[in-house]
């Protein structure tokens, strides 16, 4: 079973959540090239989502070169290029920062306050290493 966790309360479309998390698993090296993915029907049962949505996510990921389907054999993780890997990671990290900063701005934080929070958290997490 894949470590995919969907948020049904989120307004982000489910197929998008699946795509994003699978991309992160592939670009982060957690799913190596050649790894078989669950069938559409099996993933549909595990995630409690219709095959229509799973198929859409798989088709998008295939079009973007992250996975490939071999007829009669199933779906597999594709070898992705270093640049794609990096772009995916950068995009994912940037998106998370954007969300966090937007959240702070919604609470009327100033740029200086946001930077202070950032420094504080970076310091705290950095010590954990």
């Amino acid at each position, binding site marked *: 079973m894949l470590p995919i966790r969907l948020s049904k*309360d989120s307004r982000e479309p*489910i197929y998008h959540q699946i795509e994003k998390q699978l991309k992160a698993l592939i670009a982060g090296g957690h799913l190596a090239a050649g790894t078989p993915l669950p069938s559409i029907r099996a993933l549909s049962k595990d995630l409690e*989502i219709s095959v229509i949505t799973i198929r859409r996510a798989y088709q998008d990921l295939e079009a973007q070169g992250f996975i490939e389907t071999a007829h009669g054999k199933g779906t597999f993780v594709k070898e992705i290029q270093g640049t794609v890997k990096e772009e995916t990671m950068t995009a994912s990290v940037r998106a998370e920062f954007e969300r966090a900063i937007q959240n702070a701005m919604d609470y009327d934080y100033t740029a200086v306050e946001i930077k202070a929070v950032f420094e504080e958290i970076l310091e705290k997490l950095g010590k954990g290493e």
Partner: protein
Amino acid sequence: MPAWIEIKDARKNVDDFQLGPVNLEIEAGTITALVGTNGSGKSTLLKLMMNLANMDGGMIRILGKPVDGGDESWKRHITFQPQKQIGWNAYTGNELKNLIAPLYVKWDDKLFEHITGLFDIPLNKRFGKLSPGMQQKLSLALALPRKTDILILDEPTASLDIPSKKLFMDLLVDWMEPEDRAVVLATHQPDDLRKLADYLFLMQDGQGIGLYEKDVLTSSYRRYWLTEMPADSVPGELSRDGRQLISQNPDATEQFIVAQNIQVLDDQALELEDIISLLLK
């Protein structure tokens, strides 16, 4: 490709009860759940599909063939598991298998053995002497190995214990792996809907309320807790209770709330059971 099951304006009168006109199409590769309150007409509709009752109007085609057209060759491509098996009581599991298996060219004996082993089904006992749960397990063991294009199940998990329900789901998911098969399932079990269904066909008082893609349905409803409730009706509003609002059009609702300068304290998706209850109210 034409739909595998095509139901057009199908009607049936039974005493005071009137079914239909029902319209529904089932495509290959999908699991469709028939959902409705007791007596909504699900079982009657399934009987019409199997030509076990005569229609009073309309048309049903299975794999392109009208079910009441005299040529019953389509029956070899479809498996129907009713709530109660008629005429099985006097036979043991082994005898039933020997009667059924030769009728289906794709009969899969390994799968039959796998299922009977999995559920620990006594094959030497008469069907009528088995518990309701065991009868249901044996029915499944005699249904899935036929490997027909279409499988129709009338409340297949109603009598199953929790571990067996889980096994049933895994078996059905495996059975659906070849993507050219279709399942129609009448069920009251929320887990069947969540884990198996792609489409939900809702029925009430003999009428089809609508065919819904499951994920579209779950994303179409939302519950909001607001800092204040507008006096007038909100776009998409389905119901309100204090400062809690249920919307069937989250986009329109949120647009309006933002424009009114109202804050959303919290919002969440509705459970599938809640949505079904709202639609069948």
